[in-house]
């Protein structure tokens, strides 16, 4: 990827201009939001365009937790659902991908087609019946209502299957000679070596749970059970002109994903290369 190739001609400055321009276009909304989150209300409503706050303040970040006592709870709900959901996904998708890649069993084709089918069904079809099923189970306004329906992901089952097909067989064979069972081999030998593929999965599944707006909108009606996107939306309704608060809340909400990305990024690039090799 870092090979120096192709264009080595006059176009270089133009390319840099394009890249820098687009970097600025990408960054401006974030910088503007960050800057607004450090401004007092009167500076917000004055409508002046200054990226560096005139009266820098951290009050907004304190006020959102005071004005909206549930804000901490929403943060916890989101973290809990995303963390548990991601953990289960990593485990279950890898297990399923491994079975589909390595094991021979009756009904393998059917299971494989089933997973394929899931990839093609738009989520809207299952939206309404899922609500009714969760209602029947008494799982509305619950963590399991968010986590259990999303604890496997067909896309990543495929990705893991692909990964394990390319995985060297010798390691498993020698583990078997050492007397480890299939299940033991998977958990002790195979899974720890699958880190790059797992990292990509962790980032995308965590983001999926963390950013999901529609599912909690439908199943969480009790404000105590709101996740952050939902809380943020209701917060916007209550404090419609308090953009300093809304932006501070938005920044708090964005940080965890950026941290996860920063942490897993180096594995992640390798993981994506793996999927690119299909």
């Amino acid at each position: 990827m870092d090979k120096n190739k192709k264009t080595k001609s006059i176009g270089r400055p133009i390319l840099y201009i394009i890249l820098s321009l687009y970097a600025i276009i990408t960054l401006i909304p974030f910088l503007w939001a960050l800057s607004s989150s450090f401004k007092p209300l009167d500076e917000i409503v004055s409508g002046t365009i200054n990226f560096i706050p005139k009266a820098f303040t951290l009050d907004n970040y304190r006020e959102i937790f005071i004005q909206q006592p549930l804000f901490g709870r929403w943060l916890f709900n989101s973290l809990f659902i995303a963390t548990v959901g991601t953990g289960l996904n990593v485990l279950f998708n890898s297990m399923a991908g491994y079975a589909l890649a390595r094991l021979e069993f009756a009904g393998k084709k059917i299971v494989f087609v089933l997973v394929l089918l899931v990839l093609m069904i738009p989520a809207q079809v299952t939206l309404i019946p899922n609500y009714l099923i969760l209602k029947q189970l008494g799982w509305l306004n619950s963590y399991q209502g968010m986590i259990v329906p999303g604890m496997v992901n067909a896309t990543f089952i495929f990705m893991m299957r692909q990964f394990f097909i390319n995985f060297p067989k010798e390691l498993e064979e020698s583990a078997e000679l050492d007397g480890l069972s299939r299940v033991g081999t998977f958990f002790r030998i195979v899974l720890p070596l699958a880190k790059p593929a797992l990292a990509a999965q962790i980032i995308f599944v965590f983001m999926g749970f963390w950013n999901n707006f529609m599912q909690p909108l439908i199943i969480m009606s009790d404000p105590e059970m709101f996740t952050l996107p939902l809380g943020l939306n209701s917060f916007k309704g209550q404090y419609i002109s308090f953009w300093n608060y809304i932006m501070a809340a938005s920044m708090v909400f964005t940080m965890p994903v950026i941290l996860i990305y920063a942490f897993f990024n180096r594995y992640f690039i390798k993981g994506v290369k793996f999927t690119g090799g299909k």
Partner: protein
Amino acid sequence: MRKFGIKSSKLRESSQAYFFLAPTIFTIGVFILLPILYALFLSFHEVQLLGGTKYDFIGIENFLNVVDDHRALIALRNTMKYVLIVVPSQTALALILAATLNAGLKGQTFFRIIYFLPTLTSSAVLTLIFMWMYNQNGLINHALEFIGLPTYNWIGDPQIALIAIMIMNIWSTAPFFMTIYLAALQDIPDSLYEAASLDGATAFQKFWYITVPSLRPVTSFVMIIGIIGTFQLFDQSYIFSGGSGGPDNSTLTVVLLIYQYAFKSMGTMGYAAALAFALAIFILIATFIQRKLSKEESLY
């Protein structure tokens, strides 16, 4: 004896496989397959949710009602407009960014990290940030005024609101597709470019005659994913309009309409299920057409 041994080891492998697959089969069964059948059932019934759930069989009436539902037609028109503008724009932007980024310049990683920020950020946060920038007295109008362009009421004007969402989403999804293009660009053999250089091709000619055709399969993949994603527009419209699809139904999308019929009005849940089925069929058809078109193109 030996035969029996083989059989039991096969049996053991099967049971191990089903141990590995149990959570997947359970989840797909209960939360995907069962719901699909349930949705089919719902779409032929009128559903009342008062206390218990009550179903009245009404045949295909739900599907017939779509034709007379003028809000459904508005939602469909908005969604189509959105798909037709956003998908080509974000694909073109993604391709241009990827090709530029792949030119072997220094600082590539730096740009990649910046470009990836919108992908990491939730739709709710992005929508709020853009609503703040789209404010009458906000950053975007100030910038337009500064360079002498007309300003708009981005959120309140029915002529503009959907365009405001389009701009936001092209901006936020193009970088994700860029990363897919970037991976594919690694697979184009250098020899093609070298040969073109020997023939005196310009950078633009190389882009147009080598890069673009080589990436055709990826482009069709990106378009399909784009079509599926844009047909399902919901979060941004919901937050932008406070759930109403306003102003004047201008940000009403098919999924937002399904949501409203299913959860915000009484007795229309069956109708919403029928609409969801119609949408799914629409998406599948669009996907097949796109796949077919891109296959024919690749014959050239």
